[in-house]
């Protein structure tokens, strides 16, 4: 089977305490792979490990056949991985346009940047109207648009999305999931990390459940929906 990103036997620790203890995950190209887990399961740590913000102390992370574990964040990103971080994290004192341009920081072709910005404006027409507004003065929903748009500006091969539903109204959450589906339809592999089980499984192809730093269940979205593990943990 072909893979976009392989996480093999990864252990990551803060200080001496292991947060991840031997995680194995395969992210499929052109598919949505999701990672479910409750607070403190290690989801964010796994993302930090992939991106080189908190390098794993053991194990391998392989992107398109090349090891990336232990590489500095900027070189991981340069290989074609983008991240829409938890809590949106827009640059508050930059305009919407500058935020988007930051997303294309490693892209040198002006033409490509313009093209990608056009695509982002097509998905979020509101951002085009608000280009010159400081991102910090926007509503939560609008900031989510900026953050997603920024993640698309580098036309990544793999998009990691960390808790996109956090702090948004149910209507906006549905809208975001619809957009994630659309991004994936255009060919981008998505690694979706979420607590919102129902909606996540509804758009994912394959999924993993992380609990206390270990993968406790995996399977296709259909399998997970009916799995005892997930049923017990999330649906009671």
């Amino acid at each position, binding site marked *: 089977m072909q893979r976009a990103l392989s996480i093999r036997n990864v252990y990551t620790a803060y200080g001496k305490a292991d947060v991840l203890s031997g995680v194995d995950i395969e992210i499929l190209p052109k598919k949505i792979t999701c990672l479910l887990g409750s607070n403190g399961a290690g989801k964010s740590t796994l993302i930090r490990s992939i991106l080189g913000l908190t390098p794993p102390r053991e194990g391998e992370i392989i992107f398109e056949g090349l090891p990336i574990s232990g590489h500095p964040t900027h070189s991981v990103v340069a290989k074609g991985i983008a991240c829409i971080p938890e809590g949106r994290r827009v640059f508050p004192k930059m305009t919407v346009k500058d935020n988007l341009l*930051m997303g294309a920081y490693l892209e040198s072709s002006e033409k490509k940047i313009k093209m990608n910005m056009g695509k982002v404006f097509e998905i979020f027409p509101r951002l085009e109207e608000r280009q010159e507004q400081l991102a910090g003065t926007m509503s939560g929903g609008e900031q989510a648009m900026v953050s997603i748009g920024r993640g698309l500006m580098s036309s990544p091969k793999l998009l990691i999305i960390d808790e996109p539903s956090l702090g948004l109204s149910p209507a906006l959450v549905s809208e975001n999931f619809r957009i994630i589906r659309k991004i994936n339809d255009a060919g981008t592999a998505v690694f979706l990390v979420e607590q919102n089980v129902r909606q996540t499984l509804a758009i994912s192809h394959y999924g993993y459940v992380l609990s206390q730093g270990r993968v406790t269940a995996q399977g296709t979205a259909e399998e997970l929906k009916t799995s005892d593990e997930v049923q017990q943990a999330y649906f009671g």
Partner: protein
Amino acid sequence: MDISLLAQFTVNGLMLGMMYALVAVGFTLFFGVLDIIVFSHGDVVMVGAFAALTGHYWLTGIYPDMSMWVELFFISCISIITVAAFGMIMAKTMILRLRSASPLNTLLATMMLGTVLREAVRLFFPGGSNPKPFPVLLPDISASFGDFTLRFDSVILFVLGALLIVSLHLLITKTKLGMAIRAVAQDEETARLMGVNFTLIVLITFAIGSAVAAFAGVMNGLYYNEINFGMGLLLGAIGFSAAIIGGLGNIYGAILGGFLFAGLQTLGAVAMPFASAYKDVFAFGVVILIMAWKPTGLIAEKTSERV
């Protein structure tokens, strides 16, 4: 008061303000990217002046007949490049290493570094414990309007300083490098997620801040025609105060703060002609009042863009 005297005070105040602004910009840049205070920054200004003086000794030894302008250009370059390199080395070997500790440790370490720089110049520079004459490299022309004398060299220095500030502004607001510096200042981790090489941006920021300080040092030497190993101490305190009252992290605030401080000093000298030695006491006193009145600086963080 006599109008020509007032003009004289204004011009002197503007000159001082420019020097302070250039020093304050460094404090605010470093705080912007790393949230730290680099206390040795004033002494880096002094090192810039001494680097230029060393360049002067060296160049006039090789080419005694060099024209003033050419020499000015070269010793400025020598000073700026040396000090920029020094800033990068300091950031790499000391400041980035101290990141995992409390910012107070950086404050203390850079305070000690300042002492090391001061004492090193005093002990190792030939005759370093005495004030050193700085070469006159600008034409000694002046225009007099009654009692008011406008020195041509002051005008040139002011214009050069203003050009430097404008270039810095353009660099920060219009270039990709400037955007990366702003991104790191606003959210370091997210900037890294966008592909910004954090370490490189920090090093470049320290090179820029230190280079601007070096220029302030050269300017100081040319303006007073004398430099000494302790000159950075007061300049550092003033630059730091200027950055604080302007709102730490905000470049325009730092520039405003620099001119404001010079204005206060001048006001102190004008208002108390019987005790002009107290002008610093007056200026720092007012700074304390401003800090009590606007604890986050005159340009509040909310409405302004940090770095």
